[in-house]
């Protein structure tokens, strides 16, 4: 395995992140603060508790997931799309690296950035509300797995996209609504029965539910089911990436 190549890609991508550190850091802090002002203070003050948890604390896992999923996808998609766009992809294609190594470099960097943002949001949230983490190891595991799996998904979008519009299409039109409707700001038990059933078809529900379980020890769906969902999603992404690199889809003519 060409470990130096993986490191080179990883360091190169992280350097891009650190070049815009202020923007990378300030943006999630501001948006998280706004969410807490709107949902925590303004609306949350009228909601007593959700499943025994103060509403302000209840939305913390959902907010972290919202940012982490979006950041994982965006970073990974942009990471591989940009070399395609400006033509530097030739260097990856002509280097003695396997596609697996390329994926490790880009997805690893994108997941690291998202993880960093997730931690920033958790710290920001702790300034607004009191919350504790019931299962810290499970929380870290869920966070890392989510970062990795959605970075894989973002990588696929970056390969598929042929322009900047397409790059934004899936995150904006599909992923963000799925995350908002996946129980970020509410428990699905609060929905009418029909919508509860429909919501179960939203894969993000399982991630947010599992992640919330790691905080408060209670979940909308069984924790095993959440783990299976994330494993299945990761497996699907890996299969798609394997197929993309095997066929050279939109990378190699």
């Amino acid at each position, binding site marked *: 395995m060409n470990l130096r190549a993986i*490191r*080179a890609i990883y*360091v190169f991508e992280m350097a891009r992140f650190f070049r815009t550190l202020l923007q990378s850091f300030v943006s999630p802090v501001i948006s998280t603060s706004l969410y807490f002002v709107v949902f925590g203070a303004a609306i949350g003050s009228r909601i007593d508790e959700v499943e025994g948890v103060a509403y302000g604390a209840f939305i913390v896992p959902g907010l972290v997931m919202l940012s982490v999923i979006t950041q994982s996808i965006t970073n990974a998609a942009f990471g591989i799309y940009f070399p395609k766009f400006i*033509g*530097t992809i*030739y*260097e990856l294609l*002509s280097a*003695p690296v396997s596609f697996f190594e390329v994926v490790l470099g880009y997805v690893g960097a994108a997941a690291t950035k998202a993880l960093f943002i997730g931690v920033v949001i958790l710290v920001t949230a702790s300034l607004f509300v009191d919350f504790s983490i019931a299962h810290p190891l499970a929380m870290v595991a869920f966070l890392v797995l989510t970062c990795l799996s959605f970075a894989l998904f973002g990588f696929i979008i970056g390969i598929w996209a042929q322009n900047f519009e397409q790059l934004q299409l899936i995150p904006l039109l599909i992923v963000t609504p799925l995350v908002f409707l996946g129980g970020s700001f509410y428990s699905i038990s609060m929905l009418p029965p029909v919508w509860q059933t429909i919501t179960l078809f939203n894969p993000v529900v399982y991630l947010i539910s599992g992640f919330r379980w790691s905080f408060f020890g209670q979940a909308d769906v069984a924790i095993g089911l959440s783990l299976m969902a994330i494993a299945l999603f990761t497996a699907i992404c890996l299969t798609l990436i394997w197929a993309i690199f095997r066929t050279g889809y939109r990378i190699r*003519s």
Partner: protein
Amino acid sequence: MPPIVEIDNLSKTYDDGFQALKGVTLAIEEGEILALLGPNGAGKTTLISALCGIVTPTGGSARVGGHDIAADYRAARSMIGLVPQEITLEPFEKVISTVRFSRGLFGKPRNDALIERILRQLSLWDKRRSPIKELSGGMKRRVLIAKALCHEPRVLFLDEPTAGVDVELRRDMWRVVEGLKESGVTIILTTHYIEEAEAIADRVAVILRGDILLVEKKETLMRQMGRKCLRIELAKPIGAVPAALADFGLELSADGCELSYTYDRQAERTGITRLLRALSDEGLALSDLQTAQSSLEEIFVDLVSDEAAA
């Protein structure tokens, strides 16, 4: 010694049915500079891209340093450096970072001394901390060369490396290429500038519509296919070529002071002695004689136009 690059019946047909390479077979010897000439769309870049792994061939095979470019791609690619035709660089990266990145991609450990030497050789050392977007076009092209050289390739593909650069930089690059050749690097150069091939190539391959038309040593090619021209300056102008000299196919200049005689230097008899005698018999006094050989460009144009007409 086996060729360092062996291309065997390599073909490429794109999804839209366009056949860019039609069974190219070519052997490139270690340490030589091969100029790959051809008009736009001839298949030069596709051939290089296929060897480097950017384009997947649809038929045939190729080996670099004895390693198959598909089955043993890691070993094959680690021997190759590529300078692409387009200037493709991340605009916000610093020069030294992008060069280090390239070396890392090829699995080589960090070597600051080597990178410094390459950047100094390419007059980029002073700009090493500059973002690429602040460099001139010529400097960006040098960065591409630095990136291709930083992993110490044994085979270097230069795809139109001097396109759009000024004469001074072009000559600088020729010096770099000659230096690389001296260090044993094999160089395959595609170019539109025939003078470039003429100045630095050892052998010339001409590609047209995905086929290699010929591969020949530059000097042999110029000797075999080059026409020579004898220019005869007359002491006094004449109004027309004398009838007795009609057989020689002479061309008279507009001012009547110069006669041009084109001949094949490979021919058994060039006709020069007979012509000079005939000029003397006609009483024409000569003030000077000059000979000029066809340039590679003229040979290339002749070849391509002959093939296109066929």
